[in-house]
């Protein structure tokens, strides 16, 4: 896929919809195309957070492995979502696994490249925070509701 094609895809991805065109071009400079087969891992817990993904097609299961219990899936994400947020904060390691449930087409973003650009251009860095914070807050709220086990037997 040519650079222009990739730039267009990043421009059109809903995750960066509110971002200024010039800033989206900065993101696409760190982007490449990616594809995963079902059950292939996009990232693994504990590994360096080098690359995160903008999903274009297919679903991904986010989970944590537990002894004798296998993989415990706590969320699925799909087209329009982002996989991988721990690239934002030290120690830049993934906190969970991300496994493709279907054939997944994604835009891979070089996290080290993007972190460098955020350091060089703080306006860009602030814009990145504005893109990621809503996702983080939504996932925090969802996690709280799931922990509360609202569907469980009332006390």
């Amino acid at each position, binding site marked *: 896929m040519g650079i222009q094609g990739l730039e267009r895809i990043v421009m059109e991805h809903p995750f960066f919809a509110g971002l200024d065109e010039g800033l989206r071009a900065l993101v696409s400079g760190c982007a490449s195309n990616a594809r995963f087969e079902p059950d292939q891992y996009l990232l693994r817990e504990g590994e360096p957070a080098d690359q995160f993904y903008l999903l274009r097609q297919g*679903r991904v299961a986010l989970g944590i492995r537990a002894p004798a219990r296998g993989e415990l899936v706590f969320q699925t994400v799909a087209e329009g979502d982002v996989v991988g947020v721990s690239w934002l904060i030290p120690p830049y390691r993934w906190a969970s696994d991300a496994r493709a449930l279907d054939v997944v087409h994604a835009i891979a973003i070089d996290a080290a490249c993007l972190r460098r650009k955020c350091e060089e251009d703080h306006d860009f860095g602030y814009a990145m925070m504005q893109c990621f914070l809503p996702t983080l807050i939504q996932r925090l709220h969802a996690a709280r509701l799931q922990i509360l086990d609202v569907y469980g037997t009332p006390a």
Partner: protein
Amino acid sequence: MVPRVVRVSRRAPDAPQVWTLELETEAPELDAFAPGQFNMLTVFGVGEVPISVSGNPAAPERLAHTIRAVGPVSTALVGLKPGDPLGLRGPFGRGWPMDAAEGRDLVIVAGGLGLAPLRPVLYQVVAQRARFGRLVLLYGTRSPDDILFRSEIEGWRSRLDLDIDITVDHASPSWRGHVGVVTKLIAGAAFDMSRTVAFVCGPEVMMRFAVAALRDAGVADGAIHLSMERNMKCAVGFCGHCQLGPAFVCRDGPVFRYDQVRDLFGVKEL
């Protein structure tokens, strides 16, 4: 106020601690109900509880109630066998406004056992499909094992004129469906807000966030309907146990239009 004696005709498990009892009565002409209504069921010598009717309104002779064993009465209810007697009063309450949904798209958001009072809606819409627009069912529950009415949902899913999405709070690797809160499905569901009516039932925490997501998606307050639950005792608007602000859930509900209860939602004393 006096229960009539009916008998269990069928008992089937639905999920862990959840059973559906079908009742046979000697006066089937009294069994007709509207989707969303409830009956008061008595286990003699134990007590009486309100249970939503979960069966097909077009087949009231199979008067179904889906019950989770929580307290002594519900535990005794799910322990009844075919042929066992129990008491029945009802049906009571204001049900789902099916007339308001006619000719419009209908989004049903159900959480956990909240799918039970909505199942009669699904039966009615499927039976009278041409009278309604798009039908979208968004169902959230604890885990795949807790999915209610699984074979029926699979059957409805195979239809081309229904959209059904299910999500669970947690799952093992063998589950290939959605994992996460049901409110996330609302944002992803494609429906025309201007012609949508929403029916919501589930734990009140879930309903609060589901309503917020529906409103964010552009559904009007007057087009959102909720089934509220409070501690109902008399079921006829006398005792006041189920009072929700100025309303009695047993008599004025359990289904309310959201704009009628919007200001009460945030009052924690209620």
